[in-house]
């Protein structure tokens, strides 16, 4: 685009490239470790590490807002949620027989080859003139300075230009919260019944936390036990 006529062709900046490659190498090591690992505690913690390293790389890619969110959500909240779910389930995963791994590996290698074949059509890394970096994205930068007059373009696009989109996302988060509350209950007391398909008890053992099932007090009483 003529807007960028004065800007030189993208050149490889060696220190940035070294940083990028070391972050990517770290990500590959962590991802492979997740595949190999059997301890669920280790897997959950490594998933948090993976999020944190990718947040570091997001900073290097100029996506500071995304890095902020990924560090807070991916490395923080989702690790805590996975840990608390793991405490309610198992600590170890059983090994998978070789026969099942072969099929999965074949599918993944095929899909990966297909995507690598398509890489040739993508624009070069950091290209100013690529189609993705030319039209609407750069228009938002110019329009934000004129119309919204706040410095952070990401906030302007998120809340104003794409307000419908963000409204939808907020509703999705609301319904996800609603779904978890329906499945587990705000005080962990939902679903204290036993599944009875066809009138037959599937499982009559006490659930791991069935001791709470006899607690017949109301939610308010349980929330404030000292009153």
């Amino acid at each position: 685009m003529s807007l960028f006529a004065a800007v030189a062709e993208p050149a490889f900046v060696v220190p940035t490239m070294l940083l990028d490659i070391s972050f990517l190498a770290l990500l590959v090591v962590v991802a492979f470790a997740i595949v190999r690992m059997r301890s669920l505690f280790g897997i959950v913690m490594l998933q948090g590490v993976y999020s944190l390293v990718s947040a570091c790389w997001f900073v290097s890619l100029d996506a500071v807002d995304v890095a902020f969110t990924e560090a807070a959500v991916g490395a923080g909240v989702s690790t805590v949620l996975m840990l608390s779910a793991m405490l309610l389930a198992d600590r170890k995963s059983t090994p998978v027989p070789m026969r099942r791994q072969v099929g999965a590996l074949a599918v993944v290698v095929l899909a990966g080859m297909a995507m690598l074949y398509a890489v040739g059509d993508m624009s070069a890394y950091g290209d100013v003139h690529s189609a993705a970096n030319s039209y609407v994205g750069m228009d938002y930068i110019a329009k934000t300075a004129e119309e919204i007059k706040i410095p952070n373009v990401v906030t302007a696009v998120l809340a104003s230009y794409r307000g419908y989109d963000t409204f939808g996302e907020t509703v999705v988060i609301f319904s996800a919260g609603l779904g978890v509350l329906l499945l587990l209950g705000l005080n962990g007391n939902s679903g204290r019944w036993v599944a009875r398909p066809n009138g037959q008890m599937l499982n009559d053992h006490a659930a791991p936390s069935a001791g709470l099932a006899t607690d017949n007090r109301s939610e308010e009483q349980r929330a404030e036990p000292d009153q």
Partner: protein
Amino acid sequence: MSELFSQYNYVIVIILMMTGLYTVFASRNLIKKLAGLSVFQTSVFLLYITIGKVSGGQPPILVEGGASYGTDVDGHALLEGTIQVAAGGGSYILPGPGSDVLYSNPLPHVLILTAIVVGVATLSIGLALTVRIREVYHTIEEDEIEEKDFIYNLEGTAD
């Protein structure tokens, strides 16, 4: 080959994506599957963000250029591409001819920002389902769940 070298970011991100996908396919433990899914998801975020990267660019937070922003070595004003802000009298420096500021593409950032938070919301739904499955089946290994279902369908009782 040199073309592939300038696109090394896509190659590594595809390897990461496929590692996450493999974890989803190959493992039988539901929590490990969800961890693999979240690795896959984070890798897709990486793919989007690398597309929006502009080399030599800076984060899409507009730089304020006051009157003192100055001139280049030849004495030409560097503020040709700027826009005056109404009340404050300050201005933001925009990319363009005569401007030495370049911003990365903000659009992928916005798309991924919301996707991250929605990702943790869907992850928590998956974890809640896993917890409920564990309470009924006493296992979160997929093959053991299927086995219990099979026995139940055959005999009408489980365990």
